[in-house]
């Protein structure tokens, strides 16, 4: 027993102080698909200089959160900038990076997007690294076979669906069993394509706790037309067994050409490629109105860099951050992950699978998916799923309004 304890202690003591007076910084990164690439970047950095030794921690967000509680969080976070990660920023637990060269290189439209997820007043706390632009994934071969053009308006979309259905092809492959696929794809695209989300959420914030059927803006009023269109697409133009299909089924079906369109982000491509690496796929924004000017693409900050206040190696972390943001490293990362570069000098994304939304991203015609913006205390994935499984959209949106008001009262 004593031997065991001694062994455990000795092991910890050894790694605690690193050899030859090097600074040891911990770099938290847990995007599964990117780990091999990042490990190589870290190894190259460690080999390139002697001052700092970077250790990559892939244990996950739970361990990172524990680090914040304990007072020894990772020195540099490169994490999915969702509501959860944004809480470190909104609580001002991460340092101001506005003076760094990297923060100055961020495109203004992307900075607005990042600040929309979470900000600490007066600080630039998170520097975006990779942006995911999501839209409708479509099978180019099926579209070519029936001479279909990429639809620009909702009416054109319905025409495309009718043609496909007449030829016995499933227009949309739904995977409603996984609630996140409903909120990320169906709910977000339907809302983002039909509502000006920025002014909508500004209006909600201005109203405070006064959100309900009679308020100027509300989910039940502004979201309803989009949700009704979503229900048409989901109920009339989706596979009959969508309710029992999961994300993995959808990827396999798209790889086998069983569906023409798929409401997923670029992360699905590498999964589809596991079954069929030669699938010819593309992406376009889901049209929800009859004005092509309203076409917008759903974006989220897939990775953003943050340095915790509690880190005792902030300068070393900044140095490593600069290394990560070198054009050749950040561009190669985004090229391999089908992400879009957030910097003014970022290379264009040329992969044919996602280049269809490039122009929208470049011109700033984009929105952050409401399911990422609405606080997690309101279970949007489950509510969106209940809608798509048959609950009355009006009733579900009224629930979201009530939840929003309750959440606003608690703040």
């Amino acid at each position, binding site marked *: *027993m004593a031997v*065991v*304890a001694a*062994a*455990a*202690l000795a*092991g*910890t003591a050894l*790694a*605690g102080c690193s050899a030859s007076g090097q600074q040891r910084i*911990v770099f938290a990164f*847990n995007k*599964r*698909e990117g*780990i091999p690439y990042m490990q190589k970047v870290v190894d190259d950095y460690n080999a390139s200089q002697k001052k700092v030794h970077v*250790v*990559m*921690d*892939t*244990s*996950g967000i*739970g*361990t990172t959160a*524990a*680090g914040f*509680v*304990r*007072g*020894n969080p990772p020195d540099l976070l490169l994490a999915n900038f969702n509501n959860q990660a944004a809480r470190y920023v909104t609580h001002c637990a991460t340092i101001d990076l506005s003076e760094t060269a990297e923060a100055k290189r961020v495109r203004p439209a992307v900075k607005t997007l990042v600040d929309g997820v979470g900000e600490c007043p007066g600080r630039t706390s998170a520097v975006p690294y990779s942006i995911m632009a999501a839209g409708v994934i479509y099978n180019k071969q099926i579209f070519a076979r029936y001479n279909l053009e990429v639809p620009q308006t909702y009416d054109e979309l319905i025409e495309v669906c009718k043609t496909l259905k007449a030829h016995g092809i499933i227009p949309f492959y739904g995977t409603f069993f996984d609630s*996140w696929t409903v909120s990320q794809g169906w709910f977000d695209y339907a809302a983002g394509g039909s509502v000006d989300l920025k002014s909508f959420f500004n209006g909600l914030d201005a109203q405070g706790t006064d959100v309900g059927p009679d308020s100027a803006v509300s989910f039940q009023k502004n979201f309803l037309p989009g949700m009704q269109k979503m229900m048409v697409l989901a109920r009339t133009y989706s596979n009959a067994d969508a309710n029992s299909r999961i*994300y*993995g*089924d959808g*990827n*396999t079906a798209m790889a086998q050409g069983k569906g023409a369109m798929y409401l997923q982000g670029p*992360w*699905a491509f*590498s*999964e589809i490629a*596991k*079954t069929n690496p030669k699938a010819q796929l593309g992406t376009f924004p889901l049209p929800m109105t009859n004005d092509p000017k309203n076409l917008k693409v759903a974006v989220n900050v897939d990775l953003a860099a943050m340095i915790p206040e509690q880190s005792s190696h902030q300068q070393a972390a900044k140095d490593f951050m600069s290394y990560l943001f070198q054009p050749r490293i950040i561009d190669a990362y985004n090229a391999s992950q089908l992400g879009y570069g957030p910097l003014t000098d970022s290379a264009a994304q040329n992969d044919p699978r996602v280049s269809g939304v490039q122009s929208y991203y470049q011109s700033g015609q984009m929105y952050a998916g409401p399911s990422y913006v609405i606080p997690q205390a309101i279970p949007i994935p489950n509510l969106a799923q209940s809608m798509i499984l048959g609950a009355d959209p009006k009733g579900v949106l009224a629930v979201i309004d009530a939840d929003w008001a309750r959440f606003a009262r608690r703040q």
Partner: protein
Amino acid sequence: MTALPVVPPVAVGKKPRSSRRADRATLQRPNWPVTIILAICTLTVLIPLYVTVSMAFKSTSQAVDGKAFSLPHPFSVEGFKQAWTMTNTPVGLGISAVITAGVVLLTIFLAAFASYAIVSNWDRRFFRYTFFYVLAAMFIPFPVVALPQVRLTGLVHLDNPLGVIILATMFQLAFSVLLFTTFLRSIPHELEESAHIDGATTWQTFWQLIFPLLAPMSATVGIFAFLYAWNDFMMPSLIISNADHQSLPVRQNIFQTQFANNYNVSFASYLMAMAPAVIVYIFTQRWVMSGVTQGAVKG
């Protein structure tokens, strides 16, 4: 009433014999309904086990084709190779083994010490209250006290496997003390007295008399502690701050992502994590079975 003395001897003499014969008959003749139900129950274990094994040997493209029950074709060990390097399996297994061994040994010894002290001094209020105090920990699951524990272990530099050993032992102690004390009460006090009369000290009595008698219950306590410590995810993931010292289940968390399925890699890794427990079980199943049922009856 008057007929009773005449009839009963026959009835009494006959009945037990016939029922004993009936008992033997049911033992020899298979009880088909029960056998069938048990066979179906074993499927709930065998089917997932089959899927785990076959998935582990599939190629990545076959693993995501949605046919869980198909046999691996082509047969691939790529999943094992990837899992081995991605989770740094040898180190992870080693740390899990250290944590598990520490928790099992500490739990058995500490719980046995405490139970012996409590049962021998039951007439003293302090020991009775100690028992209730230790038992109260059963009602506090780790997630409830996770945040203060994370902070506390950080302050005293126990944010490492040793801290997990101490904490896990503490959480395992309540149930183990309950098992040991119930078992100790069934050991006649005269045994102990005779040892004392022969001049044994309390320490000697414990080591040479009581602890050997506790062996079956120690096995039970050890098995529960083993399963808990080996499989635990949450405590090591929150307490251990250095990623290089994480236990295997936490390392495997890397396979649980929303956007990607790597069934062959993850199942290969799960299989490797299961292997030590399965191997231990194969060699010790006799004791495990008697141990677990002992716990069930006593607890």
